[in-house]
Structure formats: C-alpha cells, structure tokens
C-alpha cells in the first residue's frame, strides 16, 4: 500500500479531531478530539517508520501514547474540578481568566 493512503487517512483524522476541538461545546468531547488528533499523528509516524524500514516511528508512537495517557488523566481531573465549581462543561463558562 503506498504511503499516500496512510497520510490521507491521518490527515482526515487530524482534521476531524481539530474540528471537534473547535466546534464542540463539551469539555469531555474536546478531550476526546484531542486524542483523535494525537492518534492521527501516531498513524503518520508508524506509516513513515514502515516506509523507511526503521523502528523509530514505532518508538516515538509509544512515547506519544504515554503522554496521551497522562494527558487524559490530568485533563479528566481538571474537567471534574471545573464541573464542581461551575456545574457546567461548556468551555464558554470558563472565561474568567483574562485581564
């Protein structure tokens, strides 16, 4: 399979993730969208790794997955804390941190 297919798929996934972050009004959904974007990138790494015949792409994917797991844990903890303070998951409710 040519590399182009993988890249198109990962590009599509990335755009879906980005659209989710920008358009959805729910913090949990936004976090999920971020995960989708990360996995789109992972796909690219693995695809290039296979194309170039090296394991570097897979190694870095493991790093990304580790970070993603940590990020998910911290992100969900923040979401819970935010929900407790405002009884809402809409990001527009949390705009008090400005000048």
């Amino acid at each position, binding site marked *: 399979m040519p590399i182009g297919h993988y890249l198109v798929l990962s590009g599509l996934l990335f755009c879906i993730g*980005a659209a989710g*972050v*920008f358009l959805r009004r729910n913090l949990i959904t936004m976090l999920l969208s971020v995960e989708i974007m990360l996995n789109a990138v992972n796909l690219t790494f693995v695809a290039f790794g296979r194309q170039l015949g090296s394991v570097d792409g897979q190694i870095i994917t493991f790093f990304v997955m580790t970070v993603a797991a940590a990020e998910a844990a911290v992100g969900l903890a923040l979401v819970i804390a935010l929900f407790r303070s405002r009884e809402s998951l809409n*990001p*527009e409710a*949390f*705009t*008090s*941190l*400005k*000048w």
Partner: protein
Amino acid sequence: MLALIPLLPFAGFLVNATMGKRLPKNVSGGLASLLMVIAFVIAAAQVWALAAIPAESRQINQTLYTWISAGNFSVDLAFRLDALSAVMILVVTGVGSLIHIYSTSYMHEETAPEFARYFAYLNLFCFFMLLLVLGSNVLVMFVGWEGVGLCSYLLIGFYYAKKSASDAAKKAFIVNRVGDFAFILGALAMFMHFHSLDFTTVALAAKAMPIETAGFGILSLITLLMFIGATGKSAQIPLYVWLPDAMEGPTPVSALIHAATMVTAGVYMIGRTAVLFEHAPITMSVVAVIGAATALLAGTIGLVQNDIKRVLAYSTVSQLGYMFLAMGVGAFGAGIFHLYTHAFFKALLFLGSGAVIHALHGQQDIRHMGGLKKHLPITYWTFLIGALAIAGVPLLSGFFSKDEILYETFLHGHYLLWGVAAVTSLLTATYMFRLVHLTFHGEERFAGAHAPASTHAPEHSSTHAPVHLHDAPAPMAFALIVLAAGSIFAGYIGLPHAFGHNVLNEWLQPAFQATNCGAPVVTGELAGLAIEECLPGEELGGEAHTGLELSLMGVSTLIAFAGIGLATFLWVKRRDIPARLAQQYAGVHRLLLNKYYVDEVYDATIVQPIKVVSEEGLWRGFDVKVVDGAVNGAGYFVSGVSILLRLLQNGSVKTYAASTFVGAVAILAYYLWR
C-alpha cells in the same frame, strides 16, 4: 612614621563619628585633643630627623601603596616631608592642637552628641589638611584639597538649624568648587604634558624647560589654572566672597580653618610647584597683582565692618593677598614665612574674639562692646599682642614677615605693588586698632538691653555691666597665651639680613628648587668643617642692599605706628570724626559697608542667570518637557498598545486553541511555499 601624622586625627574622627554620641564630653574632646598633641609630637620628631639630613637630599619619603595604575598613568599614595611641608605640618598640628584644646572649653555648652560631632569634623579636617601638605603628588594633594573643603562646609554649617549658617556653608562649598574645577584642569594639563603628577618629577622636567618670557605656553596654562584653584581655596579676587560669610561657623573653626590653615593651602600649593611658577612669568605677574589688589580691597572693607569676626575675616583675606603678592614676585620664602607667622597671630586674634564673644554670650557687634579691658585681662593682653603683631610693630613676628614681603617686592622692582602693599599695611594697622579700641577701650556699651543675653539674665538688665562677664577659662587662656608667645617670637627664625641670618629662608630654599639645588657651594666654614649650603637662586640680599632694607624697614615701622596712631586718634580721642566722615562721604561709606556690592553683582550676573536658566530652561524646559515627556511617553505608548493587545486575551480556551492552530498552519504554510 610619616603616615601616622595624618592617621592619628583620622582615628579620632572614626571614634567620635561612630561612638561619639555615647561618650561623655570630656572623653570625646579629650581624645580628639590628645591625638592632635601626639600628632604634633610625632611631626616635631620627624622634622627633627629631617633637619639632620644634609640640605641637598633633605626629604623623607613614604610610599604606602600604588593607588592607581593604568597604562602609563601611575599614582602612589605617598607622603613626602621636605623643608616646605615640614613648616606646614608643624603649623597644622601645632595650631590645630591648641585650637582643639581651646574648643573643649569654647564648645562646652553643646550637648554631648553635638560636641562629639564637632570634634569629629575638626579631626577629619586635620587629617585632610595633613594629607594635603604631605602628599607627594598632585592627586594626593587634591584629595586633601577637596577634603578640607568638605570639612569647611561641615563646620561652617555646624549650626545647621540657622538659615544663614547653612547658606554660608553652601556658598563656601560652591565658590570653592569653581576653583577646584580649575585645579583639576591644571592637574590634567600637567599630566598631559609631563606624564607624571609627582611634584619632584614635574619640577625636574619643568626646570629643563625654557622660561616662558615670550608668550603664553603650557607652563603658563598649568600654573594659571592652578592659581585659579588657589583663589578659590585661599579667598582671593574673584573668589574671596565666601570667606567673610564663613564666619557663621564656631569661632575656633574660623581660627583654624578660615585663618590659620586651610585658606593658606593655595599659598602652599604655589610654593610646592614653585619651579613651574618661576618658569611662567605671566602667571607670576597675575598672582602678584591679584594678591596686592585683594590685600587692598579687603583692607578697605575691613575698615568699616562692625562684626568683630568679619573684620578679622577681611583681615585674613588681606593678609592672604600679601602672601600671594610675595609668591607672585618670586619671594616664595617670604610668602611661606608670612603664612607661618600669620597662623600664630591670626589664630590668636580669632580665639581672642571667641573669648570676647563667649564672655558676652554671643554678642559679635563691636558697637555693643567697649571697655572690656578690665573685665577680660587675659583676652585683652593676648589680643593686643596679636594686633600689634599683625600691625607690623617692630620685634613682633608680623613685622619680620611683612617687612620681608615689602622688601622683596621693592627689590624685584615692583614699585607700584610695593606702594599698594604699604597702603594696605597702613589700613591693617588702622582697622586692627579700631577693633582693639572699640572692643576693649572706651565706655562700656554692652548693657543688658543691647546684648542678646538680655533674655538670659533679665535680673541683670538694670545693672550696667553684666555680672556674668568672665575671662577665658583655663583651656582657652592656655591656647591664647601659647599663641601670644608664638606671635611674639615666631618671627625670629626669619630675621632680616640686616640683623642676621634668615634661617627660615635658607631652610626653605631647597624646597623651591627642583629637588636639591644642583651643585652645592661651599659658603662658609665652621669648626674646620666645610658647610655646604645651597645658594638660593633668588637670594639677592647682600651687603649692598642692607641700607635699602633698613630704610624700608623704617618706612614700614612708621606706617605701623601711623596706623595705630590714626586709629587711636579717630576711635579714642575724637569719636566724632569717624561719624562725621561717614556722614560726609556717605556714598563711599555705604560702598565699603556693603563690601563694594560684590555679592550683589555676583548675584545679579551669575547666581540669578543660573537660577533662571535652571528653572525655566533646565527644569521646566528640559526636565519637565523632554525627560519627563520621554518617560511618560513611553508609558502612554505601552498602555495604548496594550488596549489593543488585551482584546486577544478573552479567557476563552477555544479562541486560544484556534489561534494556536492558525499559527501552526501559517508557519507550516510559510515553510512549504517558501
């Protein structure tokens, strides 16, 4: 050992400045005085050791460490004792000790912290003055030069709560700065030309240069700048205006700083760089003319002043003029001789006036004195000796030194300057005895109603003579008597040639030559030993001039007695004549009383324009508009831009994410389509 002489007063300063508040008065004052006496003893021992060295190499040097070393510029913190600085350290530590002792009594009414502050300043002054005279290069001298200026400021403004005192202190400091600026320029020019600031090195280099008779050369420039510095410190035209005002300080300070030592620094400086001055005849004539003019001007003002200390202040300015006249005609020895005798009798006169003021509880106006002779016998007799000495009555110290100046001036062919000096001599005798008569003779005019002490002792206001009138207490009397003895006998080390040997002049001459007179000449034999002496280059006195010297001496004796007689006639016998004269020549009288309106002229031509330029130009114009404008403008600019920028920070996490995304895409796009 040499370094110990200035360091002892400095130690006293440190103790009194740091712990003085907690020390009892007799400890702080006693310590300060004791250290000065020890410094005097060490100085005397050092001079004794110096005298044992043969005249050709008569120097004691001590280098503490290299102070500045940058490229070919190297300055050591070094002291040098030679014939000239020997005279100066003896005067500074000797008169200084006496004035410290006098002050312990004079200042005893101050509170303990004020008392300690006074002695701390006084010790600091002595430290800087000794640094000035012992420094072996211009820079060390300059440190002392600035330091004595600082102490002068601090002590004039000692009663800082008094507006006039703090004004006078500022005036003294600022006027001195004008001179100091020229001094710095002179030192820089000296370094640029000679690549050295050491006095001996410079003098040797200058000696090899031709005398600048033809035109205005580098030596003339250096010496003229340094002389302007001297006019500031030593109160000569045009920078003399600060000295009369400096009398706001405590009287012992006037005696020590503004009569005996600091104000003579300019004369000393010329003596120190005598070789340079000798090679710059233009500067020499300027020095002589300024000196004579100052002597006359100050003498005429002194004739009509009514404040006892102001009369003495103008007298100091006038006598300093004499010293500069001597320096200017090339009679360096005579100038230093007068400096040395003047230190005795002028310190004595000031301390005597201090005793009078002390007795009258602060009264300084001689119109409210009179008849004090029988109340203050010690003060009277010592003051009289001082007045006789300054008037130039034969056999007292002032006669010898003043006469030598007059003689040398005449001998060098400056007949006009001699005339001016002779007239000034008459004025000196007259105003000094006007002071003596108005203060000590005649009817008593210090009745309670006039004296400011009236609030102090209202119960005495009905009696004519206040009961409180007491003569100088023991420490003050001691200082007065020692100085009076000095005023009588100090002159005998500089006897005129007609009478014998001028020991002082021979002692000093090597110091005015570049190092030690090139080839010593055998001039006499004593006990089979050849005595080698430097033949002073300028020594013109010989058998041929004895007649001239004697006749000039007769003239100055006549002048002295004429002045005293005139004063006695006008202010004792015919008290009505001065008043009538003042009325008849009201314009002249007012002119003199107002000191030729010099202060007013300076105020109008220098102070006011500077004030206007500072206020309108520098303050309202430059500072408010340009400096504040730039600072405030920067602030307004930042706050204006931030109004726009803060719109970006709206707290919405989605906006931030979007802008990050757009930014990332933009950067990527840039690299892709570059």
